[in-house]
């Protein structure tokens, strides 16, 4: 098992390295140059060249990549073109904000999604199942900014229950912060609900159809015991992996939600860096997302390995 996880970790490192190459070189394909982008079209060519030299972007690509990647390994993510200072503080602050928002969404959606999926499976083919499935499917496919607009119109504009802006201002209490985060969390919850409920439903249906569930039922166990002890355990294993892989999606959703609600998270940071052609910031943000995704999938792998005897013990052991 340790062996397997180590292998996964190795693969994750390789993937991250590939990601860094993609990110770095995609950033460098830009026509024109950073100095020009920062100083504008009317700037003196000599000033542009001087800035380029100062930024180090006139060196060969491989040299730039090498200094960037070694910097990264020493915890130095580079210097923002926009702010002319190290990017780490920005990335860090944004990450904390995003984690708050994402955590709220997860706390709401994980129990809800699993409950919905299991309920649908237990009432397979009946009205409850139909409703949950269709709602889940629809919720998962409507873009966040669309559902975001709709909840803003309903809860902020017409009912005036909740604030439109996600930022509570500095020094706001946890409760006020929560108040501001609920509306932005809803679009994320919608989408995740669809995925998680779908997975939980499929897993439960498969487990209900299995021979071992028949064995348990024919033993004369109560239906509640059959479901709790025999069905759910096997049904929800794949769901864990799905929840983890959804972190990747979630961050994409954050870009949109944070923009819509003007919230200073990592998505917003990347969006603004992209608009300003602030490559060090953009690269640092994107790579951070990659690391978060890798860590989440690794945790999910470890968790599902630990919970699944077949993986934990191997065959015949």
């Amino acid at each position, binding site marked *: 098992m340790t062996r397997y996880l180590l292998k996964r970790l190795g*693969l994750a490192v*390789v*993937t*991250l390295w*590939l*990601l860094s190459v*993609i*990110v770095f070189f*995609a*950033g460098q*394909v*830009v*026509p024109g140059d950073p100095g020009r982008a920062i100083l504008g079209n009317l700037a003196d060519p000599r000033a542009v060249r001087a800035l380029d030299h100062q930024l180090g972007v006139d060196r060969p690509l491989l040299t730039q990549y090498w200094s960037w990647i070694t910097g990264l390994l020493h915890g130095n993510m580079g210097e923002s073109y926009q702010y002319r200072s190290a990017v780490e503080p920005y990335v860090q602050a944004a990450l904390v904000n995003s984690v708050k928002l994402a955590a709220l969404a997860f706390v709401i959606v994980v129990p809800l999604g699993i409950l919905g999926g299991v309920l649908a499976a237990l009432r397979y083919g009946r009205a409850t199942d139909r409703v949950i*499935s*269709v709602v889940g*499917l*629809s919720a*998962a*496919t*409507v*873009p*966040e*900014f*669309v*559902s975001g*607009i*709709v909840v*803003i*119109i309903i809860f*902020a*504009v*017409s009912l005036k229950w909740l604030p*439109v802006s996600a930022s509570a201002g500095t020094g706001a209490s946890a409760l006020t912060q929560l108040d501001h985060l609920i509306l932005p969390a809803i679009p994320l919850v919608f989408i995740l609900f669809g995925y998680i409920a779908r997975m939980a439903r499929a897993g439960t249906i498969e487990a209900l159809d299995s021979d071992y569930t028949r064995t348990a039922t024919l033993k004369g166990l109560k239906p509640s015991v059959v479901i709790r002890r025999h069905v759910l355990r096997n049904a929800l294993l794949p769901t864990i992996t799905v929840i983890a892989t959804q972190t*990747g*999606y979630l*961050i*994409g*959703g954050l*870009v*949109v939600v944070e*923009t*819509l609600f003007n919230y200073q998270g990592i998505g917003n940071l*990347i*969006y603004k860096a*992209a*608009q300003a*052609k602030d490559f060090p910031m*953009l690269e640092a943000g*994107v790579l951070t*997302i*990659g690391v978060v*995704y*890798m860590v989440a999938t690794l945790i999910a792998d470890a968790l599902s390995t630990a919970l699944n005897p077949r993986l934990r013990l191997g065959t015949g052991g």
Partner: protein
Amino acid sequence: MTDIVVAPAAGVAVARPDQTGELTPWRLLLRRPTFLAGAVILLFWLACAIFGSLIAPHNPLAQQLLLTNQAPSGAHWFGTDQLGRDVLSRVIVGARSILLIAFAATVLSTVLGTALGLVMGYLGGVVDIVAGRLVEAALALPVVIVAFLFIVAVGPSPLTIIVVIGLVFTLLIARTVRSTVLVESQLDYLAAARLLGEKSVSIMFSEVLPNVVPAILVEFTVRLGYAIFTVATLSFLGFGVQPPTPDWGADIAHNYVTLGAGYWWMTLFPALAIASLVIAINLFTDSIEQVLAS
């Protein structure tokens, strides 16, 4: 299924559906209300995309600076926007750009993804390992962010969006096709083909491909839904169709700042348009998947 035993295969002549009065897949599909609802909405938006300018009551580009920010009324059912343009007309004509871009991106990714998936699944080996790593790396990033990287580098245009979404979805489709091909590779008909001296390319395209077509069709419709999702999102972020061309996502981005002033109609109607389109496609896809599975 009358007998649950897995043991010996039946020596049973398969009953033709029409003889026993059972329903064909097509008729089963038509009996599903979700399929019908999806199909009707989809057809409606297709009609808007094709004949948009003919159906629209006003010119979607015409600015009426004396009639800005009008709430819905008899003259303007969906109201007017900040420049006094008719929101209904912009919603109707706006169907074109999103459907066109999403469809083109999906076709591109289906063709490339199928080819890549076949090669990865059937040939395996180094190709599979390298491509598999690339897919993993690309999937570690949300599509929207990959799109950022490209668009920032190349500049926003419908073509960029088609290429970016097309390439990212190529990897996703390749992954699905690959796993379907791996299931097929377990089957003996491929060994039988090798024993007849068939070449790898011929086995891939004339033996394996026809068997993965149903999976590819489902994947196509699923991806079309996601493509619309992504195109709308990129438009909203300002990376898609540029103003003044009517576009649902761009119009929402342009007008949502006025929500604070209570001008909800400029954003709500394009938002509902997007929602209805993606939901329709998914109801459609889901029904097909379920009927194929049954």
